[in-house]
């Protein structure tokens, strides 16, 4: 079956205006929103920035939010844009999905209150809204009851990748309608980070110009409503544009720099065109990533010249208007492209004066009255996470394949570094409960897994990710996966914390660029890609305890769609003592004297018949839900079982996310008993500890049980239910914070 993905609404908040009307006005008058600093409290006044011209109070009052609630700027901007998008589409949040991209999350507040976090309890509320996933939930909860939610964090391509996941969900029929995009506010943290990388220009940025000397940072948010055509027609809604194709590829070259020939960019653009079934010559305009750094613009130009060896379509970078809005940029630029298509103009690349032989020559003057049938929008991120998508006028859009492939998704390898488990075989996992509240992982010897010169640039967590990935691939007998999906709640928190600590204690100078580079969540997944040379689809999820589940969900989705045949899925989080103390004092993750741990898990999944290795188990299905009522959970469980041709009695156990804290576990246990009647309940966190990436451990444990045909005694919550019968199927139920939850159904591999 083939159908179209329609865009039926969008909203935008940026330096050139809050709302589409204001943005359109600025674009058509070639007025840049980049100016000297006004809102961000930093000493770096030498850098022009693209700030949204409203303070937090003004935004909150626009949204009708009280001053006392803990809020961060990313969430406030996001809400304004989300509201506009939903309004235009004529939808409420109820029952639809939200996929948001952000990297900064609540860092604006954390850098403001960091010293309070350490010294007193006055700002504890803000610790809870520090991370990316919490920021997404914060904005979503103010607008209604979304049915699905996750957060993508691939640095500057985050919002673009949110569009991709949303489109894949529509294509596989998971939901008829999703809101996708991103939000990112300016912070001292990343302003100083970019400054430490010496890629900020003290003048207005000049993408593609010979004299370009760096980027100007910006901030903003934008969201698009993606809807499958049938659903929109049924509602009587017309498309504003059609999403005709998209591609995601990894440059796999360097942590921050792009390859000279723009390999990842070329692959992403080509993939988008291929998916749309279009020839490059049909593209009427390219909205380039065009940050204004010498490296990006020449690399992107090289890639564009490969896609268009002959006539180049008009190109411009609208970052000359908005500044580089980092994680939000993909959606902000999509919104600008939509405005350009609807209102028939080519947005100019401001401040371009002098052509660079290494670069394309962009459109430097506004052109109106231009028919834009197909527009390609580029969005690239640190770590070479490159994404391109193609937007078309409604009458010109492509149809995309909307179908699920027959055949099963199987797990072929599972590797783990957590607590005492250091790459142990599946049959040996810890059987003793932990004693210490703060559980560092027992690292293997990393030597031999990666060249020393490269290893020194990788933090502990990245090394663990590389090692578990390489081990998993080797176990599955797979040289190169077609996709790498990573889940991490906090990313490399050790270096992030180091950078924040120096920033807050020593001031805005002499900060280490290496630490900043490692503060982006996707640095883990891109390090894995670089180490194994994988140019395939590469996305990182950062949604609290759902990070790994989201990565797994995306992997299964794409395998089912037949877009990929093999995938490497990982869940990785580390812990520092001081972050542990923050978690403990806020009672977050349910930690009150309970153990916290570090966890790195990597899995190889593949469509049936693609790998020669012996499969460990079958993934029958996975569902992610947001704040479901009991009825919705029942329905989801019923569907999962029915789709797998199973009933409740086929389940050998339900693997729970309880962590031993009685208060925290009580509601989850009550719910499970109601939902799963007398299926034995299993738990695993008492063996490893609690972590944002713990659900990866849950998955690891479940895979191990099914692969070894045995559920160890230590897993049973109720010793009386112990059984030595080989398990047939397990349901993983992750509901750590009683908001996001996931259900994953695994079964044993049938022997013939």
């Amino acid at each position, binding site marked *: 079956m083939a159908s179209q993905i329609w865009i039926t609404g969008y909203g935008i908040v940026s330096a050139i205006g809050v709302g589409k009307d204001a943005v359109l006005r600025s674009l058509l008058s070639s007025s840049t929103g980049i100016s000297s600093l006004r809102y961000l409290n930093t000493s770096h006044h030498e850098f022009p920035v693209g700030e949204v011209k409203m303070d937090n109070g003004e935004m909150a009052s626009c949204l009708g939010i009280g001053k006392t609630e803990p809020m961060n700027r990313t969430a406030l901007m996001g809400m304004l844009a989300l509201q506009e998008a939903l309004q235009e589409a004529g939808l409420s949040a109820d029952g639809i999905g939200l996929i948001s991209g952000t990297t900064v999350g609540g860092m604006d507040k954390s850098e403001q209150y960091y010293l309070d976090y350490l010294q007193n309890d006055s700002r504890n509320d803000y610790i809870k809204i520090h991370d990316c996933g919490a920021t997404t939930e914060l904005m979503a909860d103010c607008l209604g009851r979304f049915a699905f939610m996750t957060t993508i964090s691939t640095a500057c391509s985050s919002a673009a990748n949110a569009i991709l996941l949303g489109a894949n969900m529509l294509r596989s029929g998971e939901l008829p309608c999703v809101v996708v995009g991103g939000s990112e506010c300016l912070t001292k943290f990343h302003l100083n980070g970019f400054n*430490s*990388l010496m890629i900020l220009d003290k003048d207005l940025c000049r993408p593609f110009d010979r004299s370009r000397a760096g980027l100007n940072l910006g901030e903003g948010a934008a969201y698009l409503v993606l809807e499958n055509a049938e659903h929109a027609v049924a509602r009587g809604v017309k498309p504003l544009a059609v999403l005709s194709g998209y591609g995601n590829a990894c440059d796999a070259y360097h942590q921050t*720099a792009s390859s000279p020939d723009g390999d990842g960019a070329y692959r992403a653009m080509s993939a988008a065109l291929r998916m749309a079934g279009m020839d490059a010559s049909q593209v009427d305009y390219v909205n380039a990533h065009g940050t204004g750094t010498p490296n990006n613009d020449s690399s992107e130009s090289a890639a564009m010249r490969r896609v268009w060896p002959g006539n180049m379509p008009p190109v411009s970078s609208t970052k000359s208007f908005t500044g580089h809005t980092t994680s939000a940029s993909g959606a902000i630029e999509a919104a600008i492209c939509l405005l350009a298509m609807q209102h028939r103009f080519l947005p100019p690349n401001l401040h371009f004066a002098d052509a660079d032989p290494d670069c394309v020559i962009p459109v430097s003057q506004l052109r109106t009255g231009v028919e834009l049938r197909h527009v390609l929008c580029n969005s690239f991120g640190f770590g070479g996470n490159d994404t391109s998508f193609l937007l078309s006028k409604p009458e010109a859009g492509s149809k995309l394949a909307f179908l699920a492939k027959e055949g099963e998704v199987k797990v072929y390898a599972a590797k783990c570094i957590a607590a005492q488990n250091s790459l142990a075989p599946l049959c040996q996992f810890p059987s003793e409960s932990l004693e210490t509240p703060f559980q560092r992982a027992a690292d293997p010897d990393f030597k031999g897994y990666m060249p020393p*010169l490269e290893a020194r640039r990788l933090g502990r967590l990245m090394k663990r990710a590389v090692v578990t990935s390489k081990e998993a691939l080797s176990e599955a007998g797979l040289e190169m996966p077609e996709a790498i999906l990573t889940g991490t709640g906090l990313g490399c928190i050790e270096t992030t914390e180091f950078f924040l600590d120096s920033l807050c204690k020593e001031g805005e100078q*002499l900060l280490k*660029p290496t630490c900043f580079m490692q503060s982006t969540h996707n640095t883990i997944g891109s390090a894995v890609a670089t180490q194994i040379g994988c140019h395939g689809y590469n996305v990182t999820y950062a949604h609290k305890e759902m990070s790994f589940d989201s990565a797994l969900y995306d992997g299964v989705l794409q395998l089912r769609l037949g877009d990929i045949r093999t995938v490497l899925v990982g869940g990785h989080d580390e812990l520092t003592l001081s972050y542990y103390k923050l978690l403990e004092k806020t009672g977050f993750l349910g930690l009150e004297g309970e153990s916290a741990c570090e966890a790195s898990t990597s899995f190889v999944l593949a469509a049936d018949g693609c790998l020669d290795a012996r499969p460990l188990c079958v993934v029958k299905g996975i569902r992610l839900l947001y704040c479901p009522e009991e009825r919705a959970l029942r329905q989801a469980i019923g569907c999962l079982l029915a789709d797998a041709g199973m009933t409740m009695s086929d389940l050998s156990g339900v693997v729970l996310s309880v962590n031993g804290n009685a208060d925290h576990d009580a509601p989850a246990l009550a719910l499970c008993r109601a939902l799963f009647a007398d299926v034995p309940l299993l738990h695993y966190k008492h063996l490893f500890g609690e972590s944002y990436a713990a659900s990866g451990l849950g998955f690891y444990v479940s895979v191990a049980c099914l692969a070894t045909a045995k559920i160890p005694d230590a897993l049973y919550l109720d010793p009386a239910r112990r059984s030595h019968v080989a398990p047939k199927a397990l349901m993983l139920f992750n509901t750590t914070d009683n908001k996001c939850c996931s259900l994953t159904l695994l079964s044993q591999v049938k022997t013939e």
Partner: protein
Amino acid sequence: MEDLIPYLKKEIIEVLNLNDITPDDIDEDASLFNEGLGLDSIDALELIVFMEKNYGIKLSNPNEGKEIFKSIRVMAEYIQTHRTK
């Protein structure tokens, strides 16, 4: 000057996290980047921070680094003549 070279080697190993390399492994006249030690642009940025922190030498253009970080000896000479602390 001759004191500075071994000191620099030690510091660079520390700053750039060059595990497993001893000061003796680094030839003070060999190129730090590309064929020699194989450092890259991020290392150059780290060295720029190092220069400012330890010697009060401010480099605002990453391209200046290319000349100054040619080898340990060139670097030492540059520090000798430009240091403000």
